[in-house]
C-alpha cells in the first residue's frame, strides 16, 4: 500500500491574501489584485489577456515565456508578479510601434523573422523575438556562434534554429559566416 500525500500535516489549508500589484506593461500602467502565487507569466496570460507570451514548460527550461523586464530578458514563468512591483515589462505585444497614421511598424526582428521564415508553429516565436531583443541590448554577441550560444535558452521544437540565426544576424549586421 502506498499513499501519496504531498503536504505534511502541519501545513494549514488556506488561501493566500491578495494585494495590489502595479506593473508597467508595454508602456501602460496596470494595476492588478493578485495573490503572491501568481507568476508574471500567468498574470500576463490569464489576468491581462496578453497571451502572446507563451507557456512552454513553466519551469524555465524552454524560454517560450521570455519577456523583457527593464530591458533585460527573463523567464516570466519563474518570477512572481508581485516581485516585479513597479517594473517596466515589454512583451511581444509591445514590440511593434504604431505611427501617427495608425500604421503598424514592426520591430526589425519581427520583420526579419517573417522574411527568413524563422518559425514554423509559431509557439516559441514571441519568446525567441523577445530573447533576441534582450540579446541585442546586452551587446555581447559578435559572431553567429555567439548568437547560437546566447539564443540557446529558447528551444524551438520545430527546429527553425538556422533561420532564427539568419534573422538575428541580419538585424545585428553580423556576418553570416562568422
Amino acid at each position, binding site marked *: *500500500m*502506498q*499513499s*501519496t*500525500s504531498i*503536504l505534511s500535516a502541519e501545513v494549514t*489549508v488556506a*488561501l493566500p491574501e491578495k494585494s495590489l500589484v502595479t506593473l508597467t506593461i508595454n508602456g501602460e500602467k496596470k494595476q492588478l489584485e493578485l495573490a503572491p*502565487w*501568481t507568476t508574471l507569466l*500567468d498574470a500576463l*496570460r*490569464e489576468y491581462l489577456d*496578453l*497571451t*502572446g*507570451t*507563451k*507557456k*512552454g*514548460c*513553466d*519551469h524555465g*527550461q524552454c524560454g*517560450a515565456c521570455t519577456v523583457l523586464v527593464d530591458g533585460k530578458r527573463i523567464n516570466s514563468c519563474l518570477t512572481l508578479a508581485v516581485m516585479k512591483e513597479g517594473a517596466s515589462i515589454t*512583451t*511581444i*505585444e509591445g514590440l*511593434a510601434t504604431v505611427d501617427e497614421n495608425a500604421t*503598424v511598424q*514592426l520591430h526589425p526582428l*519581427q*520583420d526579419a*523573422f*517573417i*522574411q527568413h*521564415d524563422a*518559425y*514554423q*508553429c*509559431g*509557439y516559441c*516565436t*514571441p519568446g525567441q*523575438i523577445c530573447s533576441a531583443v534582450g540579446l541585442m541590448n546586452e551587446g555581447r554577441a559578435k559572431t553567429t556562434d555567439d548568437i*547560437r*550560444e546566447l*539564443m*540557446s535558452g529558447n*528551444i*524551438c*521544437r*520545430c*527546429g*527553425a*534554429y*538556422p*533561420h*532564427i*540565426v539568419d534573422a538575428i544576424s541580419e538585424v545585428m549586421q553580423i556576418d553570416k559566416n562568422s
Partner: protein
Amino acid sequence: MTQYIGKPINRVDGLDKVTGKARYAAEFNVPELAYGVVISSAITKGKIVRIDASDALSLEGVLQVFTHENRPKLAWFDLSYKDQDAPPGSPFRPLHDEKIKYSGQPVALVVAETYEVARYAASLIQIEYEEEEHETSLEANKDRARKPKSGLASALKPPPPKPRGDFEEVFNAAPVRTISRYVHSVEHHNPMEMFATTVVYEKKGKLTIYDKTQGAPNSQLYVSQVFNIPFRDVRVISPYVGGAFGSALRPQYQLFLAVLAARELKRSVRVSLTRQQMFTFGHRPATNQTIALGANADGEMTAMYHEAISETSRFEDYTEVVVNWSGMLYPPENVILDYKLVPLDVYTPLDMRAPGGVTGVSALECAVDELAYKLGIDPLEFRLKNYTERDMNEDLPYSSKELRECFRQGAERFGWAKRNPEPRSMRNGSNLIGWGMATGIWDAMQMPARAEAVLMVNGKLRVSSATADIGTGTYTVMTQIAADTLGMPVEDVLFKLGDTELPLAPIQGGSWTVATVGSAVKAVCEDLGKTLFKLAKKLPGSPFSKVDYQDVVFLDKSIQLKADSALRVSLQDVVDSNGGRAVRETSTSLPNMLQQRKYARSVHSAVFAEVQIDEELGTVKVTRLVSAIAGGRIINPKTARSQIIGGMVWGISKALEEESVMDHQVGRFMNHSLAEYHVAVNADIHELDVVFVEEDDTIVNPLGAKGLGEIGIVGVPAAISNAVFHATGKRIRELPITLDKLL
C-alpha cells in the same frame, strides 16, 4: 498559371505569429472560465483504494474534484472511444474505474475558479493505491513478442510482406554477411505548446471547444461519441497548433476531462497539462531491431532479414511501419521482414515524426553501411549498385524516384568525392572528423478531402477546409494554390482551417496534407472557376458568350480569353452580377485509386553528415549536414526548406540526445522535463543545407507534390551514426549516441 506555386512567399500567418496575435488552445479567454488541473497516478499498475479530496473541496474557489467515483455515466462501447487514429484494441478511458494501467495515468481533475487555486487544491488531495507488479521493459519481455492485431489502421500501415525467395539458404551461402542489432529508446514529442483544451459552455449546453489537435473533426467525433452529444452541438476550433509532430493525431485526455467538467459544472473550463504530464501519453516506442544482410563478392545485395520488436500498451496494439522500407529501398530477392509487438504496462505509443520510418531506416542504413565497409565499397557506390526502380514488396514501379539524382547532387554539394574511406583517417587538431551518408524514404499519400471556395461580394476569395496547420505552412500553401487556380493575388485570398464548421478534411499527418487538401483546394477553385465562367457568359455583352471554358484563363482577378487577353471580365463584375450574393462551391477530392494503385509512391532523400568528435571526451558535434530531397513539386520553397531543416534538427536530436528513460523498477519515465529530456538547442545546430531535386510526378496527385513533413528526419540519424563510425571506427548501434558510448 503559376504565379505563386513554386515561389518562396512569406507565411501568410507570419504577422500573427511574430506579434503574439496567433492564439493557441489555452489562449481563448472567456468570462467565468474555470480551470482544471490534472492529478497523475503515482503508481504504474494496480488500483486506487481511497481518494480523500476533503481538504481540497474545503478551499474557497474549488468547484469540484472529478474522479472515477463521481464521473457521470458515459458511452459504454469501446467503439465510442475510438478516434480516427485509434489502433486496434480498447482505447484508454480517463476516470473510467479504479484501475491504474500506467504511470502518470490521470486519476482526478480538480476544477477551481482560478488556475492557482486548482493547482493548490490538487496538492491537497490524498490518494491511496494498491500496487501490482508491472512490466515495462521491452528488453526483459521480448520473449513475449507476438504478431500485432490487425484493424482498419492496417490500410495505412501495412504489415510486413510475406517472405520471398529463400533468405536462409542465400544468406548462409553469401560470401559477405553482416548481422547486427539496433536498439532505439522511447522518445516523446514534446511540442512547445503543452496540451490544452478550452471548452466554452454555450447556451443550451452547446460546446465550442478550442483544442490542441491535428484534426478538429477528430476531436469533434470523439467528444460527440463519448459524451453522446449531437455533432451540431460540438464545434471544435483550432486555428493555431504549437507543434504536434504526431502527438495531436489522437485526442488527449485533457479534452475528455475539460468536456466532462464543463458539462457537469455547466460552465466554461480550461484544462492544460504540465510539461511533466506531456510524458503521460503517447510516445515513440522503444524498438529492438535485428538486420542480417548478405552480398556476393561484387557487392550485390542478395539476402536481407529485418526484424523489429516494438512495444505497445496492454490495451491497444499500436503499430508502425518499421521494416517494410528495407524491401522498398533495396532489391534482394531473398527477404524476410518481420514485425512484432510486446504489450507492456505503458500508455499506447503514438505516431511521432516519420513514425517507424526513421526507426527502421536508421537501423537499415547503418546495416547497409556496415555491409559496404565489409565489402570494401564506398557506401554511396554501394547504394547505387543496389538501386531499385521498383518497390520489391509490392513489385510495383515507383510513380517517380529521383533518388539517384539526390545521391548525385547531395554528394556534390557535400564534397563526398574527397572522402578518405578509412575510419579514423580524418582529423582536425585533436578532433576526429567523420563523413557518413544514408538514404531516406517515406510514403507519398493522398486522402479524400473536401474544401469550399467562395468569391465574396468584395471580390476576395475565401477558401476553407477543416484541416490543420501545425507549423507546416498549410495556410500559406493553400493560399498559393487557390490564388494561382483563380488568378488572384495572395493578398485577396483568405484560407481558413481548423474549424469543424468547415468542409471535412482528414487529420494532418503522414505528410499528406498538401497532396490531400491541396488537391481539394485546387479542385474546388476549378469548380468555382467554372461557375464563375458560366456567370460571366451571361453578363450583358459578355465577350465569352460563344467561348468554351477551356479557352479561358484566370489571371489578374479576371477571366481572360487565352488567345486574346484584352477580352476579359473581372471577377468583381462576375460576383456583382450575382444579385448581391457571393458565389460559392464545395468540392470533394478523391485520390485516383485506379491509377495510383499501379505504382509505389514515395518521397526519397540522400543525407550526408559531417561530425567532429572529441576523441578523449566523446562529445559529438554535427558540423555539416546536407539533405537532397526528391519530394515532387515544391509548392513553397521557403516553407518547404523550413520543414526539411526542422526534420534535420530532429534527426540530430534523435541521433545524439533524445531518450525518455524509464526506471523499470517503478515503471516511470524519470527525465520528464525539458531540462532532462534533451532536445537540440540552437548551439547544437550548425551548417544545414537543403537541396530540392527536381521531380516530376503526374501520378501521386493533381499537384505533383509529395509532402515533406517526415522525410527531413528519416535519413539523418543513420547518416550521423555512419559518420561517427567513419570518425572513430566504432559502431554505435544504440541511439542516442551520448558521449559515454564513445569513451
